[in-house]
């Protein structure tokens, strides 16, 4: 067989969301891979500009079904920074608590998906069964299983009662046992290791060059975690370790995630032991003063970045979301090439992708002709040269790689 180009997606059993990977195969070996984003664009950023800050929380929360708390917290942190509102300490602790519970269910979900991608459905069923514990717990604490709606501008909406705290401790204890078991499976089961070890390698240099975040970067021995580097909510006063691994492959990413679960339990126990008394929310103005803010949040999948710009009205002028999958998408193509076709699903799954959060479209608008036409390559090049010239940069006469660029 010669070289074959095979599409994985937009509709494919391995992908839970529509996205397209073009894989060039030589037999079973992948010689090249390309990632095409943009099948699931929902226009949330634009929709945010037409709603008030309060309404935006619920819209932003629905960017992602799994890391909903990550997105809403990141957005609210930006809004609170612009409005210069300080949330009560208790609210910060509750936000952190829900964030960690969310991380637990996200990592359990990932473990199951990873098992399913390599045909290990028993692992998938058991880890999802155990995930139900934390989902039911979150439903009890917040009123819903995934879109918690616990965040509000200036604090949180629901308090944690002592009975609920006891319930959390009980569930955490049960989950800790299960996590230890899965750690044993992930580090000992032969068939699983043979599918994970040295698959989808991403060295430390490549991870840094391609801008990987979250567990993907930490598995490549990069000690990077927003919770430590730029503490938000209550993370500044909570002791925990940033888990890293030197495997730099799918096995490393698995171990990092499972070990992070153990850290989650530690954090949650600390929160329950040291929960301060007091208010859970403060008043937040309907009109947010003019300004802009940039907020970072360590979502289960990596660093989630939100940018909010306010023009003094009750609606934001601009909301920009950079979901963690966006940062990791670049490294997927790198990790896929050189591997096997059989490893494509697990390598894609190993970044814990969330494509609908990531997708965006780009519209090219020709400000010279005022039309919305799509530009071809030479026209785009001409346009960029013209734009730079008008902004005081003239590239004419400069040679790059032996060719004139201006």
């Amino acid at each position: 067989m010669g070289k074959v180009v095979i599409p994985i997606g937009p509709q494919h059993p391995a992908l839970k969301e529509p996205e397209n990977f073009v894989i060039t195969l030589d037999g079973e070996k992948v010689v090249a891979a390309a990632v095409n984003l943009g099948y699931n664009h929902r226009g949330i950023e634009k929709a945010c500009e037409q709603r008030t800050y309060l309404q935006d929380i619920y819209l932003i929360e629905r960017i992602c079904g799994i890391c909903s708390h990550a997105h809403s917290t990141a957005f609210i942190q930006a809004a609170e920074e612009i409005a210069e509102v300080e949330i009560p300490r208790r609210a910060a602790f509750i936000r952190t608590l829900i964030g960690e519970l969310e991380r637990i269910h996200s990592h359990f979900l990932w473990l199951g998906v990873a098992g399913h991608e390599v045909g290990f459905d028993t692992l998938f069923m058991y880890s999802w069964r155990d995930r139900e514990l934390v989902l039911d717990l979150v439903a009890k604490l917040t009123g819903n299983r995934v879109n918690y709606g616990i965040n509000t501008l200036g604090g949180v909406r629901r308090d944690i009662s002592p009975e609920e705290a006891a319930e959390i401790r009980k569930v955490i204890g049960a989950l800790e046992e299960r996590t230890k078991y899965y750690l044993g499976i992930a580090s000992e089961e032969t068939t699983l290791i043979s599918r994970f070890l040295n698959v989808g390698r991403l060295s430390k240099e490549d991870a840094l060059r391609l801008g990987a975040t979250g567990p993907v970067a930490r598995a490549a021995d990069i000690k990077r975690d927003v919770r430590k580097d730029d503490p938000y909510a209550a993370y500044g006063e909570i002791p925990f370790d940033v888990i890293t691994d030197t495997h730099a492959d799918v096995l490393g990413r698995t171990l990092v995630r499972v070990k992070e679960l153990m850290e989650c339990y530690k954090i949650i126990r600390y929160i329950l032991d040291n929960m301060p008394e007091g208010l859970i929310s403060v008043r937040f103005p309907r009109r947010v003063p003019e300004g802009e803010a940039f907020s970072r949040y360590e979502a289960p999948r990596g660093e989630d970045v939100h940018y909010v710009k306010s023009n003094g009205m009750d609606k934001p002028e601009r909301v920009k979301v950079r979901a963690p999958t966006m940062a990791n998408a670049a490294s997927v193509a790198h990790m896929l090439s050189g591997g096997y076709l059989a490893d494509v699903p697990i390598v894609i799954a190993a970044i814990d992708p969330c494509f609908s959060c990531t997708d965006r479209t780009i519209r090219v608008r020709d400000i010279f002709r005022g039309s919305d036409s799509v530009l071809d390559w030479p026209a785009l090049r001409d346009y960029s040269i013209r734009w730079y010239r008008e902004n005081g940069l003239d590239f004419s006469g400069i040679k790059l790689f032996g060719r004139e660029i201006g």
Partner: protein
Amino acid sequence: MVMTIFYILVFPGFLFLSAYGLAVEFVDRKLYARFQNRKGPPWFQPFADFVKLISKETIIPAEADRRMFKSLPVFAMTAVLTASLYIPVWSTQSLFPFEGDVIVILYLLTIPTLTFFLGGWHSSSLYSTLGSVRVLTQLFAYEVPLLMAILGPALLAGTWSLSGVSAFYAANPIYALVNIPGFVAAMIAAQGKLERVPFDIPEAETEIVAGAFTEYGGRLLALFRMTIDIEMVVVAALVSAIFIPLFSANPWLGFLFFVIKTLFVVFLLALFRSVMARLRIEQMVRFCWRVLTPLALVQILIDLIVKGFVQL
């Protein structure tokens, strides 16, 4: 003549095997579910799936070879049904035994695999082509250890007839104990033959959609699925006839033993697929040649030594 037609069409032929195949699929799925702490499907689920598939429209891709595409499922079904005629059901004797039928059964069981390959190849779609290439690659890996694992017990029994082998071990059940390595090898190879985890590489759902069956649907897919169910019964019956010396002269008791033995084999196969991840094709081939084939060779060696002692 009438009896022959009855044997072929009703018992132990087409009707019985179809019904028992669906029952075995149910047992397999139910066990798989229970191993995963799930409830599992109701008893009629495989039958309901079959009826549903039968009632669906048959879609044949424009690029596919129509004649081959439509005839291959029938070939596959015929081959497994024919193979069943040489397998003992209610006693140690099959319906039409002859010297050398073990080889014929194994060859007949290869035909479905070849039809999967041809079906995928003639579908002319990317996923099916990849799947069919994997079918063939895998065939070359498990077929040799399977044949050799069955060869050992046959050598010890001194006959190439399955009925003869069964009769030998029914008479001397103690000899079955030396065949345990061969049983293990045959079970693992059977898992490869039936394309189940960890060897479900040719139809790996998350990688190549449904492999060779990607373009199949409706009646044709129903026939293929039925073939796979019956193949499972035949393989389980073959393995149990050779390795599990549990027979009875009473046909009713003998039939009960047949059911118990095949279900035991199915239980092991279901357990096997629920505790492992799918291997890659190159890992599978390496495993089969480096571990499974030597294991089968050891079995042959053991049988030869035992045979030498017996003859002393």
